[in-house]
């Protein structure tokens, strides 16, 4: 049992992170906290992907000097899986872009309501009848 838990501890960590992030996104009333939760969530997903690429005993997927020779068979087990890294480079960019757009919306909201507390915004909107 313990072996089982340890052998997959990368998954437990990302699941916990993801739950924290998701809770912040749904449960928190402050918009900035929601945004932070979003980032935690995205990071959890990124960690999950990166952990997929790990192979025991392998190194980063960059060919070192001596294996530059032509025709020489490259041993697959020696290098990490490069694909998740690539995907996550894209995902990181996406998450930054999302954060940026979300922050821009928050600026718009703050300019209009002077607060980032969801309850207060709702109250203001109710009071102004919109």
């Amino acid at each position: 049992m313990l072996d089982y838990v340890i052998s997959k501890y990368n998954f437990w960590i990302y699941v916990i992170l993801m739950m924290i992030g998701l809770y912040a996104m749904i449960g928190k009333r402050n918009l900035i906290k929601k945004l932070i939760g979003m980032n935690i969530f995205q990071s959890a997903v990124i960690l999950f992907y990166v952990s997929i690429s790990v192979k025991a005993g392998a190194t980063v997927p960059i060919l070192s000097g001596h294996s530059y020779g032509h025709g020489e068979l490259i041993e697959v087990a020696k290098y990490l899986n490069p694909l998740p890294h690539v995907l996550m480079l894209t995902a990181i960019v996406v998450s930054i872009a999302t954060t940026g757009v979300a922050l821009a919306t928050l600026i718009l909201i703050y300019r209009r309501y002077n607060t980032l507390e969801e309850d207060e915004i709702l109250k203001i909107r109710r009071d102004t009848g919109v």
Partner: protein
Amino acid sequence: MKLVALITVFMTGALLIYGVEDMPGWGDPNSPASSHVSPRYIQEAMEKTATPNMVSAVLADYRSYDTLGETAVIFTAGIACILMLRKKRKGEGE
């Protein structure tokens, strides 16, 4: 509301952990992820793309279309910020 959020979160978490059970162990070199598509990248990247860094090779060549999309995402975000924020400054100036 908080309760609903908690329930949702725990359900999601439980679902994810449920899935973990059938996953290959961490770092298993024979897992499908490491054995189906990726070996070819590791073996061929140098030969086909003349790039020792496989991540770069995949990023900029095999899956360069994703990267095109990625730059488009950044461009979108930039323009999005311009669209959303630009007017207000002008408005205040007037």
